[in-house]
């Protein structure tokens, strides 16, 4: 068995990103086993051939040993589900004997090796990367970045590394349990998917390493304090140290606006962005319809509104009455909730 297992979670609409992550990961770590935890099902007419992907293994959501999985899936919107599966998937990999497991978000690309992480896992059980490692001083940046992290979580869960021992195992248990029950986006109640939960990690577990190297998990939310530069040695640096990976959050929308805001007038972040978009184009999946998510609609193709998911999640009577929440037709949850709304 490979010593290091790395997984990401995504739907088919993010397959281009998964491929870019896969190709950059394989460039530096061809010996790692790269898994995709798939929170989706194939659209009609599309065949997913893993042999042609930079992916070594795939685990579908219904293979995660989640009780009553179909209803559990229904309880989550796309972001919530893609993050909720991370807990059970981590647990599964550790249970199967993987010694070191990394989670990396699909919208991340590697620019250098992660050997240091592998070494750190010899000493530490859990490694987390904070959104910020250096205080901002500009009021706008404080609002966007530091206060943003107070809302969405101190650590960015686009990256996580866990060793298969001691607190690594205890963490995986705890995180899986919490994500099975509470992986939702509910900021007023202090919840934000899988991420807010990890604010507890340094308190609940020992042997946690907070990775404060500015080269890891660079993104628009910390670019203000980690200027990207490239010298004649061809090394891309963030805040003066080697860029390991960049998190291309929402590259086709607010992500670019935030990069513009915090690029410090430097062109390098935009070079990365242009490159990333070109790689996405090269890895596009034309057979997957735009915005495809198998669990995004009822059986008749009607989109599932978020409030239906919330209602089903919170009300036992609905769960009892409608065992298949995705069904459509006369005696379906969809019809019932639609009528109530009228």
């Amino acid at each position, binding site marked *: 068995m490979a010593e290091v297992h790395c997984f990401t979670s995504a739907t088919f609409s993010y397959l281009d990103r998964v491929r870019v992550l896969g190709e950059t990961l394989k460039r530096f770590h061809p010996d790692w086993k790269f898994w995709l935890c798939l929170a989706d099902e194939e659209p009609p007419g599309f065949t997913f051939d893993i042999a042609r992907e930079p992916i070594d293994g795939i685990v579908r959501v219904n293979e995660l040993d989640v009780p009553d999985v179909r209803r559990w899936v229904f309880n989550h919107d796309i972001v919530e589900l893609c993050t909720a599966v991370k807990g059970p998937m981590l647990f599964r990999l550790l249970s199967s004997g993987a010694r070191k497991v990394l989670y990396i978000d699909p919208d991340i690309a590697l620019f250098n090796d992660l050997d240091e992480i592998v070494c750190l896992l010899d000493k530490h059980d859990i490694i987390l990367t904070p959104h910020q490692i250096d205080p901002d001083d500009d009021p706008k940046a404080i609002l966007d970045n530091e206060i943003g992290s107070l809302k969405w979580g101190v650590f960015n869960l686009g990256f996580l590394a866990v060793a298969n021992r001691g607190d690594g195992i205890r963490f995986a248990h705890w995180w899986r349990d919490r994500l099975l029950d509470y992986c939702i986006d509910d900021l007023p109640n202090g919840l934000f998917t899988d991420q807010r939960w990890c604010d507890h990690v340094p308190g609940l577990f020992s042997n946690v390493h907070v990775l404060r190297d500015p080269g890891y998990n660079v993104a628009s939310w910390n670019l203000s304090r980690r200027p990207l530069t490239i010298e004649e040695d*061809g090394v891309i640096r963030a805040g003066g140290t080697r860029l390991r990976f960049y998190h291309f959050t929402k590259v086709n929308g607010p992500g670019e606006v935030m990069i513009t805001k915090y690029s410090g*007038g430097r062109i390098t972040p935009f070079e990365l962005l242009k490159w990333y978009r070109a790689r996405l184009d090269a890895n596009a999946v034309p057979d997957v319809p735009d915005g495809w998510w198998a669990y995004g609609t009822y059986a008749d193709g009607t989109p599932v509104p978020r409030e239906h998911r919330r209602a089903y999640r919170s009300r036992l009577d609905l769960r009892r009455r409608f065992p298949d929440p995705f069904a459509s037709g006369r005696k379906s949850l969809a019809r019932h909730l639609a009528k109530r709304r009228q």
Partner: protein
Amino acid sequence: MKGASKILRWLRRTTKANRISRSRIVRTTLLGAETAGKAVAFYARTGHWNTNEHNRLLAAYRRQLHAAVSPRIRAKDWDGGKNRSSPMTGAALTQILEPLVGNAQGLIVSLSHDDYGRNYGGVQNVIRDEQQVFGRAKWLYLHVSPASPLPMLSDPKPANEFRVSLRFDGNVIGVAMIGDLVGSLETLRRSIFMQPIVHHLMGLAPELVLEVIRATGNDSPIAWAHDFFSACPSYVLMRNDVAFCGAPPLGSAACAICCYGEERPLHAARIRRFFEAADCIVAAPSQAALERWRRFDLPHREAVVLPLARLLSVPPTGNPPSRDDSRPLRVAHLGAREFRKGWSIFEELALRHAGDARYEFLQLGTPDGPSMPRNIRNVSVRVDAARRNAMIEAIAEAQIDVAVIWSLWPETFCFTAQEALAAGAFIITNPGAGNVWPAIAANAPEQGCIVNDVEQLFAMFRGEDLRARAHAAPRRRGTLLIEGGTADWFLRRHATESEAAPTTAVASPSMDGLPIQDESVAYG
């Protein structure tokens, strides 16, 4: 009146609903009006709306980045430059060349990226100049260029499928297959000494250039480093056309995100095999260029620096031109509005000082290219074969005080720096501009200054010292003595070698021992 009462009602509603004071709304409105007024005034002066100094230059860089594409994609746009003439046969070519050989001293076989008789630029000028000098010394000059110019190396092709344009002593001969040219040269070399000079490999297949060199029977080809094409298809080493990269190690992260990165490994491997096989004498137009080229660690027999021109000071013929303190300091960008020549930096400088009575901004060069701010005046200058001093004259005539030569890549020679010096302008440059500062330092160190970065450049213009500094510099006048490219140096060397060993004037059969191209590369 109806409109006014509507606005008042809206104002009342808004202030009440949002719990904000009316005075705050009025203040905000006035502030907005003031900002808008400033923007309109800025537009009137410059033709630009963007008053934000912080993002304007970045926007220019982003436009340049957006336009950057891989050379393979750009090659599709070069199709129009193709010479579509039908190729002549090998026999016809030999028939044309053989009688021309006559009693000449020798035949220069020169190769470059395009037809120097049809195109104008630095390398083309050098070829034109050296052809004339060789001609005066009774040397014949055969120029070979790809019939389909490309912004990269040509993919490997068989010799009987690669078309080249030929020019003999400046006159068009036509198009031939490079294989037929090789055959003709092999025939001719029995009767005349041939010297290959490779000015540029762009658009050519280096494997086929090696065949041409072999055919000349000369084992001392000369290869020019006019730029840094030896290291990368981006011959100015500009990553994504926006930042100097210095040719980082192959496989570096910088190459991985660069639009030239995909082509570079094979490009570098083919160039390396060329230099390994050809054992060239490398000629560079400056010591700075040669030092940079040497970093690529390519094998070569020897290296020489052959400056393209020499600056000659002209003795003063009267009182030096007076400095007029009453007029604005005239600040110029010399040459085309090209990003890599620092045009965007100059443009930003002008925009920052729109309405600043201390400065007047000019562009001396062709009036084409991107539109420019209204507060930059174009003085149309075209330096060509007939008007080699046109830039010097224009700088002097426009009474340019300061030339900002802010090249973003290490210029290998930089005619404009020499021209600015010859015209007596004070030069401001940066440490990364290659031969610009060495040229100033060697000729008139007090006539220029080196500024570390763009922020320092902007600070210099914000400050009050520039006028005094520019005026304190001696306003020398001079002229440029154009050197004959490879010709003068080669003729001297050849004469010495001929005296030492007269038989070298005849083709050496030892060249047959030159390594033959790797078949898998040539046709793979």
